[in-house]
């Protein structure tokens, strides 16, 4: 069965020896690989071959892993189902009628289908955790600044991080150990991940840990999802964790704030794709502006165009204060809410996705519905926090993910708690 996971199966060998030798890994196609096409799931970059490796790719090669290919994704990361890819949707290996989630759908599907031991995704508003939940694998969105973004083709650069996916918490943590750390090419990276031992934290010991349950993020969720997630939290309690309910009032504004910020940044980040150096046919008529517009009309898909237009609007004079500035205020509030919560708890818990994986074609027609699917994941990006999605069980034969959120650079806490879910 072909799930349309790979966009390119060119193998890239790693160093002979290293912590990941013997491991295979799939790389999301928005992460630059020297000499190997990197398309972002877009016609605009269908023929783009980067002349340099992303920092994470260099680290993975040095660690001895074998890169088995570049994998499918929503175009420029804009989507939660991998259906906006210009190269067709990826199917969920658990149920090929259903989407694998997104935007790192190819990454999660590669691991779920056994095509790779590990995968690299990127998470702007949930793009690692969402497909991990839908495909029944583990995915980590690290603290902003833990992993270098150098070579990650930007969608919304203030929000996104590269993160690992794997079949187990420990394997995901091992990959995080390899890719984390300060990078002179990325001024936003911090040193907290320099000599990390995240894999050691996957010891399954949650005794004495306080887990805050974010009530707001259960309220709108599918009952089957809520039930499965609550069972997994009860399992943690039985292993010695204490749980308390927490409420974060700011979260009701998170989706709106997230989309305004992400789209605004996207409108600028994607401006360089103007047909001069990237694009399809070229040779358009008219002046520069007309040529740029034609190239962008031809090269971008609908969802990308929608987000660029909305983002441009949100940043425009007269609307900037009403949308962009207000969204930044909401972001600061979300951050503050999380800070307060972490004075009482070690980690926070919620369903990763409020729904079970939709069927292919089911959600694409209604963008707003698609955006609301991100309600549980985007607050984490707004607050620059680390979070993990770990399989909580199944409902109707479909995987359900538990999301565990940690304080800034608290990767060890969420890895420890998630590893206990696997017990």
């Amino acid at each position: 069965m072909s799930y349309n996971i790979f966009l390119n199966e060119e193998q890239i060998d790693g160093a002979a020896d290293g912590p990941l030798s013997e491991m295979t890994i799939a790389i999301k196609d928005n992460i630059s690989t020297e000499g190997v096409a990197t398309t972002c799931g877009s016609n605009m970059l269908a023929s783009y071959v980067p002349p340099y490796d992303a920092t994470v790719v260099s680290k993975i090669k040095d660690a001895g892993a074998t890169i088995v290919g570049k994998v499918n994704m929503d175009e420029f990361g804009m989507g939660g189902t991998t259906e906006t890819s210009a190269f067709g949707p990826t199917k969920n290996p658990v149920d090929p009628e259903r989407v694998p989630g997104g935007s790192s759908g190819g990454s999660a599907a590669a691991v779920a289908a056994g095509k790779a031991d590990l995968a690299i995704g990127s998470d702007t508003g949930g793009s690692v955790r969402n497909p991990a939940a839908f495909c029944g694998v583990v995915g980590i969105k690290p603290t902003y600044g833990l992993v270098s973004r150098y070579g990650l083709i930007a969608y919304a650069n203030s929000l996104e991080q590269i993160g690992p996916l794997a079949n187990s918490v420990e394997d995901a943590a091992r990959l995080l150990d390899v890719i984390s750390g300060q990078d002179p090419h990325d001024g936003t990276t911090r040193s907290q991940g320099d000599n990390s031992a995240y894999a050691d934290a996957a010891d399954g010991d949650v005794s004495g840990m306080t887990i805050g349950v974010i009530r707001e993020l259960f309220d709108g969720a599918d009952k089957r999802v809520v039930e499965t997630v609550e069972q997994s939290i009860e399992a943690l309690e039985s292993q010695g964790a204490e749980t308390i309910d927490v409420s974060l009032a700011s979260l009701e504004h998170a989706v709106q704030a997230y989309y305004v910020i992400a789209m605004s940044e996207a409108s600028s980040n994607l401006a360089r794709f103007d047909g001069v150096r990237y694009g399809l046919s070229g040779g358009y008529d008219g002046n520069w502006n007309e040529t740029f517009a034609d190239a962008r009309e031809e090269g971008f898909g609908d969802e990308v165009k929608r987000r660029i237009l909305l983002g441009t609007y949100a940043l425009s004079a007269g609307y900037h204060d009403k949308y962009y500035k207000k969204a930044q205020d909401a972001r600061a509030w979300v951050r503050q809410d999380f800070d307060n919560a972490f004075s009482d708890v070690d980690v926070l818990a919620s369903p990763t996705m409020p729904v079970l994986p939709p069927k292919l074609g089911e959600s694409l027609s209604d963008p707003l519905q698609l955006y609301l699917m991100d309600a549980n994941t985007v607050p984490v990006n707004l607050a620059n926090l680390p979070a993990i999605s770990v399989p909580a069980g199944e409902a109707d034969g479909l995987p359900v993910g538990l999301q565990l959120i940690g304080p800034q650079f608290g990767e060890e806490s969420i890895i420890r708690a998630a590893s206990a879910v696997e017990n």
Partner: protein
Amino acid sequence: MTAQAAEQRELAVVIGLEVHVQLETATKIFCGCSTRADEDEAPNTRTCPTCLGLPGALPVLNEGAVEAAVKIGKALSAEIPEQTTFHRKNYYYPDLPKNFQLTQYDAPICADGSLEISVEGTRRSIGITRAHLEEDPGSLQHKGGSIDTADYTLVNYNRAGTPLVEIVTEPDFRSPAETRAFLAKLEEVLAYLGVFDATRDGSLRVDANISLVDAEAVAEDGSISDEALESANRTEVKNISSHKGAEKALAYEVTRQKNAIQRGRVIEQETRHWDETRGITVSMRSKEAEKDYRYFREADLPPLEVSDWKAKIPIPELPDARRDRFASEYGLDGESASKLTSTKAVADFFEDVAESFDPDLAATWVADNLLGELNYRDMEVTDISDRLEEFTTLISLVDADEVTVKNAEEIVLRSMLDEGDDPETIIDREGLGKADDDAIGAFVTEAIEENPDAVEDYHNGEDGALNFLVGQVMQKSRGSADPGTVNALLQDELA
């Protein structure tokens, strides 16, 4: 207003400047590529993923550029903020690799400064609104026509990412001459700071906003009400690349606007292009809807704490302070001190010379002789910066009496500048070396033998006879003998 009334209006000139200065840092502002263009470098070779704006590449701030900007801020007595941040200025243009420019918006590295200038003996302080850091775009070559008519356009990103400081002044200039004085002074200060290389092509680019207001709107202290400023339509003149160009372009624009107003016409608010070769400004585009650059914070560049940089980063002595020190330390008059500090190269050279020789001699040779001859030839001291040792040699030859002052000034210095030879070569070639006493002795003997009448007159006590004989000896030595020595030798010989 009728044309007649307009004609009778007294008008005052209001000018503000935006000066783009390329900073002399080793590497570009957000990557490790060199800022220095090799001669005949191929297009798009001095580049990397970051300055090419390749997908996924990130900017990392070159703190050297921030240091240079802080130095400029100190020299302009400006405020340096607690922290400095960068914004994206979004617009589409093919020379812009990312279709946005990284610049500073609400937290410029310098704000509220000033620079003193002197025009025809009057000192004025020009307000500096702000100075901010940004990246230079690449450059375009239009093939087969102008920007609008070219068959195609080539893009070269070698320049992309060169650090720029944009210095924005208050509308404090009241004449084109003041803008020239300001820009010359600014260039000098920047050169003193070691952050600017005037010889680099395109290292200084100036936009000027100019309008004419009723002279009555200008208060005694030179200030102008916001009302008067806002009511006058202004033009923005672009493509000015030197202080001389600024004066010419703005003098043209003053005349053009005055003529229009006097004919009762309204000045159109527009951008005009200074055409240096034709000496005129040309309308580029009439007032269009105000550009919306959709500024927002660049998340890839974290805020940089600079609150203690002002204290931490030293700047060298600036021209005004150096002028005062020259006057007191070397006992120079005000005019010489000003001349000698007019450029850093001259001042440095003078101090070198003054270290080895008497300051008066050094001042005469540098301020009067060298600068005078350079000025006569429309040359600058930078034109001969690699030959300054030769001038030191010349001064030492004068100081050691190896050549007469007159010959050194009139023959050696001039042919050094005109022919490019070194002083020793010229002295040898022209036979200007001061004759030694033996040679002079021989000329003395000859003169006595050849002029028995004068010798007789001398012995008869006639005053003019000795002077005549001295003249004869000097002629024989072609000026290379010292008249005092000749005098003494003749008296000995005739005694």
